[in-house]
């Protein structure tokens, strides 16, 4: 676990990104767009760790591509968003733990679908094997304790895995002992998704060539806040269950229901919109190999929300147990795949921002 994960990375990706970074460093025209460029201009030569850090600072807004006078057919063939996207994904795969599963899902929507099927099967099996202890509502299909027995580890394992990965990342990019200011600075930027607004606050160049648009930022906010609301719904239910002894099913005007409903809607619509944006964008400015895996991941993410809403809609019908299995299967798969899919990007990005704040503090 202490081996340097950088050595697992693809030298071709690193080399190409380094070649382009050196051109940018002689040019500097894009300095105002995002945090990649000021970090880049602080160096003269780029180690593998430096390139990895730059890659994780980039959020693929593509501003620097459309602004670049050196894109193909020019012989310098600049395409920094794509070069950094490849390094970024490779870094997530290389730092992930455990390794054998790490390189399966980023590039393959098929593998994600397969995982989903296995997730369903596991839940169905659990329903069959454990059955119900005669509870009400959903617990009529699966007892509360059985749910906890399945989902507690499914929640904790990915967190452990991510923690290992981020630790590897931190050491690879040369991170040193943290100060509180590094963290608060980075969180402030992440919460506002400030960089997704681009240097002049008009958003990304994503769905229509060089037109600036806030869509991508808004869609990310929708999905993120939708997801957090759903999470809050589950958390509030947990608190009600254990602290106040209030057991599900809950009424419509209850925290879990309201948070879940709003969150689920935001989250589901956000994912559909995200796919629509992606379909309009130019694949060659991202990680082409990861296209299928990314779409597969968003589909899974959206399906988690959608099946949750369906479960809500069909909760009083005979379809409930089937819907419950489908929803729980999707949630289970989603949790377990978190360290190995695009879901990991938020964690890496935050870490990269913290490291960037630290760099700025140390370089003064």
């Amino acid at each position, binding site marked *: 676990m202490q081996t340097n994960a950088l050595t697992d990375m693809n030298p071709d990706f690193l080399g190409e990104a380094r070649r382009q970074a050196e051109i940018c460093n002689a*040019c500097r*025209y894009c300095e105002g767009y995002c945090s990649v460029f000021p970090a880049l201009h602080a160096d*003269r030569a780029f180690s593998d760790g430096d390139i990895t850090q730059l890659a994780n600072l980039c959020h693929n807004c593509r501003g620097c591509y459309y602004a*670049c*006078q050196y*894109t193909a057919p020019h012989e310098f063939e600049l395409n920094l968003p794509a070069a950094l996207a490849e390094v970024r994904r490779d870094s997530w795969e290389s730092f992930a733990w455990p390794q054998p599963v790490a390189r399966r899902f980023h590039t393959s929507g098929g593998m994600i679908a397969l995982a989903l099927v296995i997730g369903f099967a596991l839940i169905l099996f659990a329903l069959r094997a454990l059955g119900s202890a005669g509870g009400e509502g959903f617990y009529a299909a699966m007892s509360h304790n059985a749910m906890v027995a399945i989902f507690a580890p499914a929640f904790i394992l990915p967190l452990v895995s991510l923690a290992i990965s981020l630790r590897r990342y931190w050491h690879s990019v040369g991170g040193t002992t943290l100060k509180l200011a590094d963290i608060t600075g980075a969180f402030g930027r992440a919460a506002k998704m400030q960089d997704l607004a681009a*240097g*002049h606050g008009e958003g990304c160049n994503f769905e229509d060539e*060089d037109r600036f648009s806030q869509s991508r930022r808004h869609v990310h906010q929708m999905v993120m806040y939708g997801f957090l609301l759903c999470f809050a719904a589950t958390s509030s239910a947990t608190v009600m269950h254990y602290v106040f002894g209030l057991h599900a099913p809950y009424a419509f005007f209850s925290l879990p229901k309201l948070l879940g409903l709003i969150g689920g809607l935001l989250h589901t619509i956000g994912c559909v919109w995200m796919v629509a944006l992606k379909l309009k964008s130019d694949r060659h400015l991202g990680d082409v190999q990861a296209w299928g895996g990314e779409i597969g991941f968003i589909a899974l993410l959206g399906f988690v929300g959608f099946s949750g809403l369906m479960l809500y809609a069909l909760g009083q019908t005979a379809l409930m147990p089937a819907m419950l299995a489908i929803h729980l299967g999707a949630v289970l798969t989603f949790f377990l795949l978190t360290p190995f899919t695009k879901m990991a990007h938020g964690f890496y990005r935050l870490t990269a921002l913290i490291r960037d704040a630290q760099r700025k503090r140390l370089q003064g």
Partner: protein
Amino acid sequence: MKPNDYDIAVIGGGNAALCAAMTAAEAGARVLILETAPKAYRGGNSRHTRNFRCMHRAPLGPLVEAYSEDEYFADLMKVTKGKTDEHLARLAIRTSEECLPWMEAHGVRFQPSLSGTLSLARTNAFFMGGGKSLVNAYYRTAAKLGVDVLYEANVTHLELNGDTIEWIDFTHEDQDIRITPKSVVVASGGFQADTDWLTRAWGPAAKNFLIRGTPYNRGVVLADLLEQGVSQVGDADQCHAVAIDGRAPKFDGGIVTRLDCVPFSIVVNKDAQRFYDEGEDTWPKRYAIWGRLVAAQPDQVGHVVIDAKSLNLFMPSVFPPLKADTLEELAEMMGIPADKLVKTVEEFNAACGDTSNFHPTELDGVTTTGITPAKTNWARPITEAPFYGYSLRTGVTFTYLGLKVDENAQCSTADGPIKNLWAAGETMAGSILGQGYLAGYGMTIGTVFGRIAGREAANHAN
């Protein structure tokens, strides 16, 4: 619309053309842009720019403090040594102040002065993302205003009959097309990409020049109009040329091929002889004359030699330097006589004196004594291995020979103004700049005169 349904044809697709087209469209004219480049290369030299020089009486946008008309004009006179049309120059300077908000309103975004260019924070406003993002923003705004664009539309001829342009010929998708717009704006740049023309003006040396910007500014329209007696300004051998990395591509190498290491080096020619004071002044003030100095050397090449202690004193450039443990080895890599290089360096080192006052960013007066040419600042002996080398070549930015215009950007013949022909940008910059160049003034000229040309062309057409 068919190509013939437009009131105004604008020839060219760079900054000057776009400023003219947007202004004319806002005045209600139907405008067609004819750009010879494909879409990927639209925007001519303008897509390589990074800033424009802007007068301001108080802090304005990204610009700090103030920059008065007189100071701006004085700066200009210094570089042109008085070869300047004062009336037009002051018009450009005065109007630049209102250009900045106009540019913002048409989609351009500015950013604080780039790292490494702090000296320009007061005088030059930097485009966020550089010139290509400016060009992109203008194309978007122009489209919203109803301006149409034909790419790969190469204008070959403007028919001048007395005081009127009767028609325009251009080729597009293998077709020859003739249109008869009411007004015509020429904004198709200089002729620097036509090596034969450069060679006629400069002699065979021009074959070794590199062209820093677009390969599409070949002066086709300029030559066509001059042949028909349209008034000319400037000399064919006047141009803005700088010394750039000799490994740069023939065309379109742009900003990244610049080399900032000369002040910390010695520069020798292919015979390993020094030929000019490398430390005469700070590099931003000297890089333009080095274009000409190198052009005057055999094979139009210079070789820069620095040692390990100077490597980190200048901005990194796009190509890594040659690197060798001995000067002999370095000479071999450069293809110059090793014994002579060693001798030149020894003589130079022997002429260096006390270097304790060395200061990389100021004129430090650390000078040589007893050699010619002297090095009058930053003269430190070349002693610490590894040694590094770059080659220098002449990189032409743009040519000055162009169309003579008046304060309305209008072209003329010996018999008086041409009723429906205006020019803007590089193609008429010689009307203002007789020689020399002031960083950021090219975009100022293009913006100011582009807007004037658009206004006048629309007035005539409406």
